[in-house]
């Protein structure tokens, strides 16, 4: 037998993506590409005021229009759907999918039109007349906490959704002992204080949301396509709301054009389209317009932080207090209430704080609800704490890198139990810092900055560390859904491998990375592995893609299922080759007895025997397919260091990013090319937040940034070339040693940007976003000069 070429190991290689051929040729199927005979279109009539009572709704003109199948008001929908469920344990006011007697944010749905054509549906929605009695809009969360200008829900005094929860030093269940914190601040040699705002953002996946629901009455079965990150959760929730069995629903996430956390939530539109399809017995399609997405898709962030840090003169932090106020908008959605709790948990950052206390209040306002957005609670924590470290460094006249170094959790202290409830799995923060300082040439950059300043330019440097919680699970951390992941691996009759995964990629490239893993595990070519996902009719179980969990949790489930099948395959091979299964090896697409290449059997030969086992080896079942659920024992905690250099135009105040260096440690990497793409995307969103993105509401509750004309999504010209580097600290939490990388870029880049702007202007802190007008005013207040203080005032 001719020797087969040796297959290269693929894990760790820059393998180009297997998803791409369909995507670069227009062959992918997104929700709006799904067409079903007889399909009708849904349009939502939305509130154009932020807060008010509905006096009346007149749908008569809409109903009479040619092509209109049906029109439903909130009362009609309430007869089909209970108030929406949430995934957190907090009490919440009833949230109807379509408003009944009051609207609480601009864009809330008030009526539903079904029509033969999307243009007709839009015309009909425009013909609906709603008479409102306007109420004052609650916009500022800190005024809202005083019940001003009004109270949105009578049962929630002072608009408090979550009145107060605490974590950290001296918090024991529901009791708090302030003595350790008080002692730290009483003994402090230096204290810094700062109010900061991590402002609201619009997630803005390029594909807006969309749903197609098809209830087939004679089968008692629904197929629902949705642009979602988690079709299995969708199936569970829709089944619960329609009061049918989960086995009566097939939920499909077809090609999904980005999610960034905003497509985790199960939305009113998904429930309504499903319920109305069931009511009418018709296939229905709803596709979100972008201007709808700005009001109807959850926003991210929106947290105010009051930070106090106590320290010794040598830079050692002795105590941290962080009081958080989350502006959650008008309703609790699936995970709304949980996101800011991640800010509490991750406020420990990369530091060994002797005492830390975080408190959190969540406040209702007349705005679009918030929920997960890339980073989801951790960028907020990173921003507040890293800015605090910079304030201390400035106060102590110390290099910000050196101050951080003095406070790191040492690398020999992992697993590290933080006082805010996390158990950091592994870390070497000093290594990441040093890698970044070297890669960026920190000392050289400082010299460059001084040279540019002597030319009259306004230039600053910023550095930030981050640690984030990824690999979501375990189930205790996700009590509403479970935190495991599932996979089924099958060696088909022809010897090729098909695997399903419960994660639901929408740009992350798991069809490639997971195929790399199985190709290596079985010793077969990449082309012989197919990864299926995103369809509850094909993938038996799953949780979904969020919280940077695909590789760490989904990848491990895949590996476990692969191991089971490989073991069984070895047994069949052993029976065929009359050898012991321990002596069976898998190499180059063949299975053989170790050291006896002449014994090699092709995968197809073993599979033929496994599926037609004559005779069936004793104690075995036919077939080569098995599944695994992986429940992680802990989260993973990737970390890194981001450095930026930024210049501010003296005449216009416009910030320009000159340099970005990112060192990220995500543990072991399966595909560095894909990891780079993930980090680039995260950096762009983190820098975008610092520099140009901001959701802005007027005092009347009108969204002022309701389209891409007003909400500044970053363009290619907004960024320089990102310089990426990695350190590798594997996690012990899973056998792959992989931590997760989807969100990392949004954590360090944002505070680094703000640090650089503050440094450039020579001020302690300029809050995000770095609006040119704001920066220009600071320059003007300095008499057009900047940073005129002595050099020692800055690092």
């Amino acid at each position, binding site marked *: 037998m001719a020797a087969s070429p040796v297959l290269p190991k693929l894990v760790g290689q820059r393998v180009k993506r297997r998803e791409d051929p369909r995507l670069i040729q227009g062959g992918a*199927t997104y929700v709006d590409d799904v067409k079903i005979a007889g399909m009708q279109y849904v349009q939502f009539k939305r509130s154009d005021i932020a807060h008010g009572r509905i006096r009346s709704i007149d749908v008569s003109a809409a109903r009479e229009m040619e092509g209109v199948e049906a029109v439903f008001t909130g009362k009609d929908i309430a007869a089909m759907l209970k108030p929406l469920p949430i995934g957190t344990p907090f009490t919440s006011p009833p949230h109807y999918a379509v408003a009944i007697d009051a609207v609480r944010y601009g864009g809330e749905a008030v009526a539903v039109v079904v029509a033969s054509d999307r243009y007709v549906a839009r015309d009909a929605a425009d013909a609906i007349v709603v008479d409102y009695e306007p109420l004052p809009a609650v916009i500022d969360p800190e005024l809202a906490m005083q019940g001003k200008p009004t109270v949105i829900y009578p049962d929630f005094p002072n608009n408090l959704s979550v009145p107060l929860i605490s974590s950290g030093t001296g918090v024991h269940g529901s009791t708090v002992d302030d003595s350790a914190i008080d002692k730290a601040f009483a003994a402090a040699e230096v204290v810094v204080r700062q109010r900061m705002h991590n402002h609201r953002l619009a997630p803005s996946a390029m594909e807006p949301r969309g749903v197609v629901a098809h209830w087939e009455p004679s089968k008692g079965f629904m197929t629902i396509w949705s642009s979602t990150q988690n079709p299995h959760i969708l199936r569970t929730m829709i089944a619960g709301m329609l009061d049918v069995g989960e086995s009566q629903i097939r939920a499909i996430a077809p090609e999904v054009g980005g999610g960034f956390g905003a497509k985790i939530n199960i939305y009113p539109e998904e429930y309504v389209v499903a319920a109305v399809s069931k009511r009418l017995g018709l296939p229905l399609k709803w596709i979100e317009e972008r201007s709808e997405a700005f009001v109807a898709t959850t926003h991210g962030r929106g947290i105010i932080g009051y930070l106090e840090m106590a320290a010794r003169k040598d830079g050692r932090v002795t105590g941290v207090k962080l009081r958080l106020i989350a502006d959650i908008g008008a309703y609790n959605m699936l995970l709304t209430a949980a996101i800011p709790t991640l800010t509490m948990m991750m406020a420990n950052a990369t530091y060994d704080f002797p005492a830390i206390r975080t408190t959190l209040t969540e406040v209702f306002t007349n705005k679009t609800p918030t929920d997960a957005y890339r980073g989801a609670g951790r960028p907020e924590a990173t921003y507040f704490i890293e800015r605090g470290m910079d304030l201390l460094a400035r106060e102590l006249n110390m290099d910000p890198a050196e101050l951080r170094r003095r406070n790191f959790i040492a690398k020999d202290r992992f697993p590290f139990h933080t006082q805010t409830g996390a158990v950091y799995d592994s870390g070497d923060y000093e290594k990441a810092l040093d890698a970044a300082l070297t890669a960026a040439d920190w000392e050289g950059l400082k010299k460059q900055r001084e040279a540019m300043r002597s030319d009259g330019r306004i230039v600053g440097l910023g550095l930030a560390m981050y640690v984030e919680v990824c690999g979501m699970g375990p189930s205790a951390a996700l009590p509403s859904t479970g935190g495991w992941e599932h996979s089924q691996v099958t060696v088909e009759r022809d010897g090729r491998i098909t695997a399903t995964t419960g994660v639901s990629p929408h740009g992350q490239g798991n069809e490639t990375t997971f195929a790399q893993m199985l190709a290596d595990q079985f010793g077969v070519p990449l082309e012989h592995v197919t990864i299926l996902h995103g369809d509850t009719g094909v993938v038996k179980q799953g949780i979904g893609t969020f919280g940077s969990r695909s590789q760490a949790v989904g990848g491990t489930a895949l590996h476990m299922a692969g191991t089971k099948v490989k073991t069984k395959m070895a047994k069949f091979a052993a029976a065929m080759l009359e050898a012991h299964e321990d002596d069976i090896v898998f190499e180059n697409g063949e299975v053989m007895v170790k050291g006896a290449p002449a014994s090699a059997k092709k995968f197809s030969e073993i599979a033929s025997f496994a599926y037609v086992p004559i005779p069936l080896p004793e104690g075995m079942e036919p077939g080569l397919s098995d599944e695994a659920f992986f429940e992680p024992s802990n989260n993973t905690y990737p970390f890194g260091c981001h450095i930026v250099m930024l210049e501010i135009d003296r005449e216009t105040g416009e910030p320009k990013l000159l340099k970005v260096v990112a060192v990220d440690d995500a543990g072991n990497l399966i595909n560095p090319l894909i990891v780079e793409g993930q980090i*680039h995307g995260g950096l762009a969103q983190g820098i975008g937040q610092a520099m140009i993105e901001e959701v802005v509401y007027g005092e009347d509750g009108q969204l002022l940034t309701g389209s891409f004309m007003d909400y500044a999504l970053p363009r290619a010209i907004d960024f320089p070339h990102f310089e990426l580097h990695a350190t590798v600290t594997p996690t012990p939490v899973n056998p792959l040693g992989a931590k997760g990388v989807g969100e990392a870029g949004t954590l360090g880049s944002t505070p680094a940007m703000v640090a650089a702007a503050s440094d450039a202007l020579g001020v302690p802190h300029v809050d995000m976003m770095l609006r040119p007008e704001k920066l220009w005013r600071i320059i003007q207040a300095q008499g057009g000069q900047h940073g005129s203080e002595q050099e020692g005032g800055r690092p």
Partner: protein
Amino acid sequence: MAQISVTVNGKTRRAHVEPRTLLVHFLREQLNLTGTHIGCDTSQCGACTVLIDGRSAKACTVFAVQVDGSSITTIEGLATGDRLHPLQEGFWEEHGLQCGYCTPGMIMAAVNLLADNPAPTEQEIREGISGNFCRCTGYQHIVSAVQHAAGKK
């Protein structure tokens, strides 16, 4: 209803359209060419970019009746048989896409860019694709993809 005759990806199509029908809806709904996407409603995002008589245009900003007699190229018509267009190859080789939603429009915009400037600098590429949003990639690998394609020309 108005009658139009348009050459789309080399094939002449005759159709009746409402005067208000957008070109992007005509392509997607009537011709079933769903590779051209819709990402906004204000002509900012560029997901719907196609070539009209060889020049890139946002198909959400053009009525179908306006292209009567024109020649349109969409992403489905870019490859030559089994041979990918250099930009399609570039996007694949350089990981110039993640979710893929902006990709067809981004590629069509880049076709126009390279037609005007066959050897653009990085800054010229960044400027040239700034009519198109991508939320996934941070644009860096898209720049590499365009450079890859330019190198092949």
